[in-house]
């Protein structure tokens, strides 16, 4: 167990024993990530704030059920994802929010834009511009792909934890992650490609 995890468990133990400052420290440590996650999933400022509050409220209420066999953050993310998905379902009841769509067949796997990127494309943009490009690209994904991508590649949960958190199978996580990554790659290519390179059709 890493020093960070030991320290985190100590904060959880102190929170359980009634130390409000320990719980506040956990909040301060993770609020930015939980808020980002909530925004990515709900794509709505008001919903994201609700999710942020409700997630920490629930975490506090259920602190005793946290087993300590997973990381506290993974446990917290699970709570936040559930809250965020509930918001998303409430707001949009159309089929685009279904997280249980049929297994993809692979027929839709295409790479349309093939262009070499600049050596350091991130340097062409300010931090704010870059964050904006990256966030907009994520927003363009459909919810079932977006959620998997956010958990796997932004929050860096394992494939298994992602599957468990979303209540979907491991193959479904893998299939959606592949599609999400390829779609983002295409979007980012528009910004990051080396100037002068031709974009040509592929497959």
């Amino acid at each position: 167990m890493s020093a960070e995890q030991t320290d985190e468990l100590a904060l959880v133990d102190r929170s359980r024993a009634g130390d409000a400052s320990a719980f506040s420290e956990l909040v301060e440590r993770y609020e930015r990530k939980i808020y980002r996650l909530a925004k990515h999933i709900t794509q709505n400022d008001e919903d994201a704030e609700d999710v942020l509050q409700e997630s920490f409220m629930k975490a506090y209420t259920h602190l005793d059920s946290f087993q300590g066999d997973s990381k506290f953050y993974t446990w917290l993310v699970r709570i936040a994802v559930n809250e965020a998905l509930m918001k998303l379902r409430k707001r949009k009841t159309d089929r685009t929010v279904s997280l249980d769509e049929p297994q993809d067949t692979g027929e839709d796997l295409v790479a349309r834009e093939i262009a070499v990127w600049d050596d350091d494309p991130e340097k062409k943009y300010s931090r704010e511009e870059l964050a904006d490009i990256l966030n907009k690209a994520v927003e363009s994904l459909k919810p079932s792909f977006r959620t998997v991508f956010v958990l796997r590649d932004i929050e860096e949960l394992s494939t298994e934890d992602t599957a468990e958190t979303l209540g979907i199978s491991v193959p479904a996580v893998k299939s959606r992650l592949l599609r999400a990554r390829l779609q983002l790659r295409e979007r980012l290519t528009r910004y990051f490609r080396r100037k002068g390179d031709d974009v040509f059709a592929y497959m």
Partner: protein
Amino acid sequence: MLTCKDFLNELSEFLDESLDPAIRAELHKHVEECPNCWVILDTTQRTIKVYKGLEPQTIPPDIHSRLMTALQKKMAAAPKSSSSSQ
């Protein structure tokens, strides 16, 4: 013989290094010989990297303070304070 389509299908797992070594070696071979797949591999890898390196932005101060107020209220109303050990 692997096709580009096969390569694309395995790309994610190739990047996550969760593949059987024999399949991995075949994919390596393909990507060395196929410039298009090489570009896709490189740019997908960099796509993942750029997201992983993205630090979460600071949350707006009013959102932070509303969160803390709500939590403080909650903690005061339902203290954990050693109710089990008293």
